[in-house]
Structure formats: C-alpha cells, structure tokens
C-alpha cells in the first residue's frame, strides 16, 4: 500500500491530483464546520463586496458570503458527482462484463443497443430523465448515473475482452476452473485497474454535468449553494461583481482538474509492470 502511494506520488500528475482531491475531500468533510457564515443568511447591507478579511472571497447579490457557500456547496456538487459516477460505473461494468462473457450474437446485440443509447447526447439524456422524474438533486444523480452507464459498459467490455484473450485466462479454462473463479480471480483484478482510472476521470465529467443541469434549472434549486446554480444565478449580476461568477467557476475547475490528474496518475501507478 505504501509502495502504491509512493508510485502515485512519483509522477507530477499523480502528486498534484492527490493534493487537489485531498483538498476537495477536506472541504467536503469539514466544509460546514469551517464556513465562517451561514450560507443562506441574506445581508442586504453587504451585497457585492470584494474580497476582504471579513469576506475572504467577497459576497454575492444577496450579501451572502461566497466562501461559506462554496465550502458548503462542495457536498452538493462533489459528493453527488462521485456517487453518480460510482453508480453509473457499477451498472456499466455489469452490462459490459455480461456482454463480454456471453459473447457471440448476444454480445453484438447488447453492444449495438449501447451504441444506440449513446447516440443521445448524455446531457440531453440527463435532461430527459430529470424532467421525467422531477427536478431534484437525487433525480439528477440518477440521471447522470444512467447517462454514464453506456460509456462505462463499452469500456468495461473492451477491457474484459482483451483480458479474456490472455493466455493466463486460457490456462485457467484449460485447467477446468469454474467461471466464477475465472471472472473473480483471473479477470477482475486485471479489469478493475483501467476501470478505476476511467471512473476517476469521469468524476470530473459528472461534476460538469451536474453543474450544467443546475445551471439549466433542472438540478439543485435556489437557494441551495450548488456551484453550477451559483454560476447560473450570478449571470444576471456579473457586471456588478465578477467575483460571484468567478469563484464558483474556479471551484468547479479545481475539482475537475484534480480528478483528471489523479486519474492520469493512477493509470501509471496501477500498471504492475512499471
């Protein structure tokens, strides 16, 4: 384990990624405790303030402290994105492995169907699902998970198929091992690494998708401190104070870049041969 961490930190991507993701994690866990103000308290006298010792990142159009709102909004944005990605990955991995395992015509049919589903842009898909279930955070989570599943299924299948062709799997088949053993002990450990990498990178897509849904008014609802919603609300007031717009954008960017870099770092660290 320590060996693995060392390998992860050896590359600059891995090191910066770990740092950014840890930072985000701290904010997610301790955000509400660290926040100096209540995120939803309006102070009409302190609107559009620039950064100052009192308000580190300034205040928004209702005089709410932007820093506090970001700290608290991290949960809504990041936790949802991680959960949605995990859910989407699990569904996708199940479909992908099944397809690869069944092979032949069944595999062909499943994959062509997946391709068909993927011809609907994932944002549009998420919009449809949210609209179907009603705008709320949980529904947005389900929408993003469903939108991610086909892509993950495709990736899982191609990884599983390439592992399936390896001679160590052939050796296990020739030895008469059970399907369960072959899938769990021979294939899974070799399939899981690339999927973890892909999943990590997709967390940043999920953050974007969530923010976009909120931005379009179909995710979190005001006055929640969701980052995408904050950008959306800031639009009307941005010429009065650019900070309202910029800080939540920066927060989104940090999370996205962090998970992306971490994914790149994991890709190298999880390769047993390097």
């Amino acid at each position, binding site marked *: 384990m320590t060996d693995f961490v060392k390998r992860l930190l050896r590359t600059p991507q891995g090191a910066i990624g770990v740092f950014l993701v840890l930072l985000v994690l701290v904010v997610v866990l301790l955000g509400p405790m660290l926040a100096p103000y209540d995120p939803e308290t309006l102070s009409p006298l302190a609107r559009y303030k620039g950064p100052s010792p009192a308000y580190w990142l300034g205040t928004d159009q209702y005089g709410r402290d932007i820093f506090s709102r970001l700290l608290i909004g991290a949960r809504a944005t990041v936790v949802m994105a991680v959960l949605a990605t995990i859910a989407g990955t699990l569904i996708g991995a199940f479909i992908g492995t099944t397809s690869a395992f069944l092979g032949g015509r069944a595999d062909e049919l499943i994959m062509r169907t997946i391709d*068909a589903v993927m011809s609907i842009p994932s944002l549009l898909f998420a919009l449809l699902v949210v609209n179907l279930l009603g705008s709320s955070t949980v529904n947005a989570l389900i929408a993003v998970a469903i939108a991610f599943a086909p892509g993950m299924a495709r990736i899982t299948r191609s990884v599983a198929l390439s592992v399936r062709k390896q001679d160590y799997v052939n050796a296990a088949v020739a030895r008469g091992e059970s399907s369960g053993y072959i899938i769990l002990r021979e294939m899974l450990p070799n399939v899981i690494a690339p999927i973890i990498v892909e999943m990590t990178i997709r967390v940043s897509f999920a953050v974007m998708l969530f923010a*976009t849904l909120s931005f379009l008014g179909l995710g979190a609802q005001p006055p929640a401190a969701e980052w995408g919603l904050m*950008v959306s609300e800031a639009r009307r007031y941005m*010429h009065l104070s650019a900070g309202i717009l910029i800080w939540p954008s920066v927060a989104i960017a940090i999370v996205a870049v962090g998970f992306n870099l971490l994914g790149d770092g994991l890709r190298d660290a999880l390769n047993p041969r390097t």
Partner: protein
Amino acid sequence: MSPNYVAKRLVMIVYTLFIVSLIVFAITQVLPADAAVMMLGENATQEALAALRENMGLNAPVWQQYASWLGHVLRGDLGTSLRTGQPVGPVMLEALGRSLLLAFLSIGLMLVLAIPLGIIAAVRRGKIADMIVSLISYAGVALPEFVTATVAVLVFADLMKWLPPTGYVPLTENFTSGIAHLVLPVCVISVILIAHVSRMVRSELVDVLHTDYIRAARLKGISRGTVLRRHALRNALLPTITIVALDVGYLLGGVIVVEEIFAIPGIGRQLIVAIQARDLPAIQAGVLIMAATYSIVNFIADILYAWLDKRIQYD
C-alpha cells in the same frame, strides 16, 4: 470496403433509430403530463377531455400508441406540438439547420486549430508548444460550456463591447451581423473540442512517430519533414476522423447549453423549451432528430475511414 460493410452500417443506423424511438417513447409515456389536459387547458370538462383522449388514441394500449406514432414518423409526420399547435417536424428541422451551422463552424474552427496544435505538440514533445496543448486540454476538461460562455459574454460583450452578447441573426438577412453573433458561441463550443482533439492528434502522432516504418524511412535518409508529411501525418490523422465523429455527441450536448445561453433558436433551445413545457411530440421529434444526426455523422465517418484506409478489410 465491401458492400457488406456498408449494408451492415446502414442496418445499424436503422437499429439505432429504432432503439432511440423506443427510449423516447418510453420516457414520454412515463412523463406525468396528460396531453389532453395540455391541449384543452386545466378548465376543460371531463367529457371534452375524454373525447379528445379517445380521438388522440390515448386510451389504446401503449404498444398500439407506439405503433401508430412510429407509423406516422415513418411517413414523415412527427406530430403536432401541444404547445403551439404547429407540426413539430418542420419546426425542428428548421431549428436543426441553425444548429448545424453552429456545429459545422465549430468543427471547422476546431480542425483549423486542434490539428496543427496536436502536430506541433507531438513533434516538439516536452517543449513549450507541448505544454500549451496540455494546458488547453486541462482548461477544456475544467471549464464547462456554461462557464466559458458566461465569462466570454462578460468580457467580450459587456466589458469590451466587441461583439453582441446574445441573439441570432440569419446570415441571409445580414451577413456581418449574423457572423458577429456566431463568433462567441462557436468559440465556446470549440474549446472543449480543441482540447480533446488536439490531445488525441498528439498521442496518435507520437505513437506513429515511434513505429518501425518511420524509423525505417528516417534510416533511408529521408528528411524529418518529408517523413512527417509523407509517412506520419496521414496515418496519425486517419483515426482523428473517428474521434471527431464520436465527439459530435459532446458537440450536440454543448450546443444545447450554448444555444440556451446565447438565445440561438436552434434545436437545442427548442428541446429545452419543449422539455420545460412537457411538449411530448416536440421532445420525441427533437431527440429522434438529434440521434439521427449523430448516427448519420458516424456512418459517414466510418465509410470515409474505410475508404481512406485501404488496409482495412471490413466484412
């Protein structure tokens, strides 16, 4: 490229659209909206509602409704909007035209910038150009369209007053103004595409430059530049066709957001309006048209690829 391959790809398009039609129909079936109520308003009498439902076939079993809807779609009738009472097909296709203009300009800009960037980054690996490409690609993954769009409007329209902030002017009406209105949306959509494609071109070209045949060509005394032009570029850029085609999915998603922000009456904005109004026929038509666009683009890309790459024997 065999006729077999073309036939197979055509059948795949039909299958794709069939699956999409099923999904779209299923989603609109579960929607808690009653088409009859939408048409006649909340104050309609029960009798009038019942009569309309009967008339619209809403009392028939679901599969019959699907079959009748599909039958109409196949005859080119995509239904009538519950919101406006207009046929949705022509409206959506007209909107698609504007979106395609936006999409083509974005792809054009992307190709003009992303391919040279990717090539320079691959050739001068580890140098400044390479780092710029890395930076752009991280910017691409870090900034969603709605952020770049909003910031772009703030900077170039509100502060600098170089360009109009939002709106759409048909090119046939006023060409200069039309173009001016398209500049910001096209740039915003291109950013993510440039980020992705330049990175892909770079990694493809780096792989090709490490192949035995490039080494063999260099060892025949062919100069770096000639080897790059004659041997490497062609092989590295071929896969880009497929990547760009797959990116059309992202592009269409991005178009939705950008059209909403810049108030461009394209298919994305029509869809958002339809979704917010729960205008079922409009949603069905819009999603179907988007999926068809995506499938056709990918079909063309695959055929183009197979035609250009004579190595591949498809069956």
